[in-house]
């Protein structure tokens, strides 16, 4: 799940890339320009990444349901080769994502992306962990993009 807590409006979101493997909205991914796919970075990535999101259009039997939670798997799970929207993080923006690992994290720590998820960084990074956010019962990590690099 990706929530835009505070973001700049009217940015473009590249919608021309497919997911190279199954992934979840809210992950950080990198562009593979040769295959035109969004790949999950395995090593610690701190820049040049995009947030994955998709439109909440129900498929299959879910079409018979009028109201669905935004957290429903139909809306958060992305299948391999499904087209995704890639959001560009900018300095000053705050995002909420549930794709994170809490181990060792405390407010103000730098984050990096491993396996698509935000984890405590062991390199200098501009991504700051700003605590947890309770979204109607779902816990998200607040990721803020800072203007300067922080080292843990």
């Amino acid at each position, binding site marked *: 799940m990706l929530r835009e807590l505070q973001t700049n409006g*009217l940015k473009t979101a590249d919608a021309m890339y497919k997911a190279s493997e199954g992934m979840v909205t809210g992950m950080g991914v990198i562009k593979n320009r040769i295959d035109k796919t969004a790949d999950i970075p395995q090593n610690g990535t701190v820049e040049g990444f995009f947030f994955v999101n998709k439109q909440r259009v129900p*498929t*299959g*039997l*879910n*079409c018979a349901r009028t109201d669905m939670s935004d957290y429903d798997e139909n809306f958060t799970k992305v299948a391999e080769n499904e*087209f995704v929207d890639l959001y560009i993080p900018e300095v000053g923006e705050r995002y909420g994502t549930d794709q994170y690992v809490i181990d060792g994290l405390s407010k103000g720590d730098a984050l990096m992306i491993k396996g698509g998820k935000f984890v405590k960084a062991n390199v200098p990074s501009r991504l700051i962990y700003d605590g947890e956010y309770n979204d109607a019962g779902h816990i998200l990590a607040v990721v803020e993009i800072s203007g300067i690099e922080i080292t843990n």
Partner: protein
Amino acid sequence: MLKTEIAELMKKDGVMYSVAQKVDYKLNLTAEEKEIADTCDAWAKDIGERGVDNDNEIAAYIKRTVTEEVYNAPDELLDRVFDRGTVGEFDDYEAEKNAKNTLIAYEAAKGGNVDKSWIDFSALTPKWKNRQVETDISYVDLRKNGFKSIAKLTTFAKEALQNALFYDVFGDTDAAITGGDQLISVSGSVPTIVAMDALELYLTERNPDALAVCLTKYAQAIGRMDGYHQYMSDKMKDDFNRYGIVENFGKMGLATIASAHKQGNGDLLIPDKRIFGIAGKIGTLDMKGDLHVYETLDNNKEAVNIKIADFTYGYLINKIENVAKIVFS
């Protein structure tokens, strides 16, 4: 005053679009159409000068014409091959495949049992695709060319979306034919009588109204096949010499698609090195939801960003036996 005139014109189906096309293709306009073109010119220049399009008229104009001519356009060839329909934006469907009779009748002695056998149903889900066109018009263009720039945009958006749909569907139909009697291979780059006979036999056995589809270069090559002239009647020879392409082969008709007509990205409309044969409907093709046109005025860059989105279609091929193809090497 300008706004009411445009609004009235837009209410009449198809008027704005046909004028746009005529302007774009440089055909002669009637007196009434000239008036329409002038009014639209003034309206477009008005937007270019003030940088405001309060009633989002550009978007309304594009949506009206694109929706009428493209999205619901009854493309005849696709109509022959697919059952066409529409579903709502938040609908979905699946198709049931008729169960085959897989019950087995064993020879058996009387008074005992044989192995059980069963029948099974399977469901097919359609393949959904979504296409989108984005472009911008600068205010300078609006002031300078007026009506003409929006006309070009609508015509091209229509063609891009329609061509992409056509190519998608035919490309997948092509990939679904992988062997058996439906696949006729020819080593060479021109059709042969043997291959054309095989195609005609396969198709007309299933449906006497069968149709073959190919690029014009193959329709021309059919007329020049080795040894074919001896089977042509005088009338057929006259027609071939006059029109340059063959329109029938045996009982099956031949529909041609110009190889000069290409999509915006340079692709041909149907795959090259193929002649397709259609004996009947092979599945369903549905449009999902409505087309949406979004307009963002950027006064800083002095341009209007136009996004034509939600051209969503889904197709399902469940009777692939109704199609055959000849593949050239």
